[in-house]
């Protein structure tokens, strides 16, 4: 009996040594597991009331020091192509930006600390991308998210924003849909397909025909 209890005690010592400290969930996390795909929509918007869209010809790269740089890397080309195809698959027609599209699609890669938009609890939501009013022919217009707060954060992310060009309100355009890709590997070209299909799959309401 004594011997058994002594052995148990020794075993106990070992177990306590191994189990005493907490598990850090980030330690065994893959890049795929680290990513989150956040979509937000404007309330009371009928997505079928829009028929045409135009998309930026390059991707904005926003950093804390510079937010009007644009790029067209292979990654950016693939992102533009994937988002375009996804919207066409939902019944929207691609037109040139001169043809007065109903919707403008903005793509932004966000790097570093950037003034971001989110609402409680913060990490889940939309950070607005960079919007060039001159590109879209709306000088002096910004676009806004009625329910969001400004914050700062540090990371790499990608923002896909859809802006309503049909119904400006008080010299402002309203963003009606946003997707944020956050986590490790969001700037990796091999992840574009799965990320873009995920945000469209979770936004079934985003379609031109009811």
């Amino acid at each position, binding site marked *: 009996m004594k011997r058994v209890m002594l052995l148990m005690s020794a075993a106990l010592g070992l177990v306590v*040594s191994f189990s005493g400290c907490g598990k850090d969930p980030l330690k065994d996390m893959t890049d795929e597991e*680290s990513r989150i795909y956040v979509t937000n929509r404007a309330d009371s918007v009928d997505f079928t009331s829009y028929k045409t869209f135009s998309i930026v010809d390059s991707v904005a790269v926003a950093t804390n020091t510079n937010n009007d740089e644009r790029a067209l890397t292979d990654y950016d080309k693939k992102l533009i192509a994937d988002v375009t195809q996804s919207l066409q698959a939902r019944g929207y027609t691609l037109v040139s930006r001169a043809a007065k599209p109903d919707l403008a699609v903005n793509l932004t890669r966000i790097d570093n600390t950037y003034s971001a938009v989110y609402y409680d609890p913060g*990490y889940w939501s939309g950070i607005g991308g960079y919007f060039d009013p001159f590109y879209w022919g709306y000088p002096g217009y910004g676009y806004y998210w009625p329910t969001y707060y400004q914050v700062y954060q540090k990371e790499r992310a990608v923002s896909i924003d859809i802006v309503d060009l049909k119904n400006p309100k008080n010299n402002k355009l309203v963003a009606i849909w946003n997707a944020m890709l956050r986590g490790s590997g969001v700037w990796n070209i091999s992840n574009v397909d799965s990320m873009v299909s995920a945000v469209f799959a979770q936004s079934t309401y985003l379609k031109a025909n009811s």
Partner: protein
Amino acid sequence: MKSIKLWILTMIAFLGVQSAFAQVRSPLSINVDYSIGQPLGSLKDYTDKTSFRGWRAGIQYQINDQLAVGLRSGYQQFYQRLPREVYPTKSGDISAVQSRSLEVTPILATVQYQLRKPDAAIIPYVGLGVGTVNMLYNKYWGEFTDRDNSWQFAASPEVGINIPFGKGSPLLFNASVQYTYSPYKLQEITSYNVLQANVGLRLHIN
């Protein structure tokens, strides 16, 4: 962790030296246990996995042959990772792999009543711990966490047995079952209810 290993080594060393002549146990004792925790109630909605990551340690003073008071702390982590899923939010959806963790660190004042005299071969006991507990909640959405750290009230009744390593030995084997309640409310969790099993050692030191 070093200190726990040291304790156990000390206990084993003490066994040989003291058990030969100690007839009556000294009143002050320390104890360390390995703990397994089973979440119950709404805690299961957050993480329903049994926790094998836990321990507790305490110090206790024997007032008479049967009644003792003490102070106890410890650690238990409940953890579960859920596969990727789409969760609705106020204005949209979020697709994420959730890693849910709750790290629990109690600090309890304890009272223990032993149902047999100290010279018994097996000493069953009942106990109650009352105090505060630190709850560190981390719900990771991918690599981004929803974190909350708070202190709560906790109460923890317990039944167990002590088996001395020989008559009058200052070293005792301990096994117990303990239930802990805390009125802890956060998101899925409406109260904290855990059934916990402990095995370990108690050493009378002075």
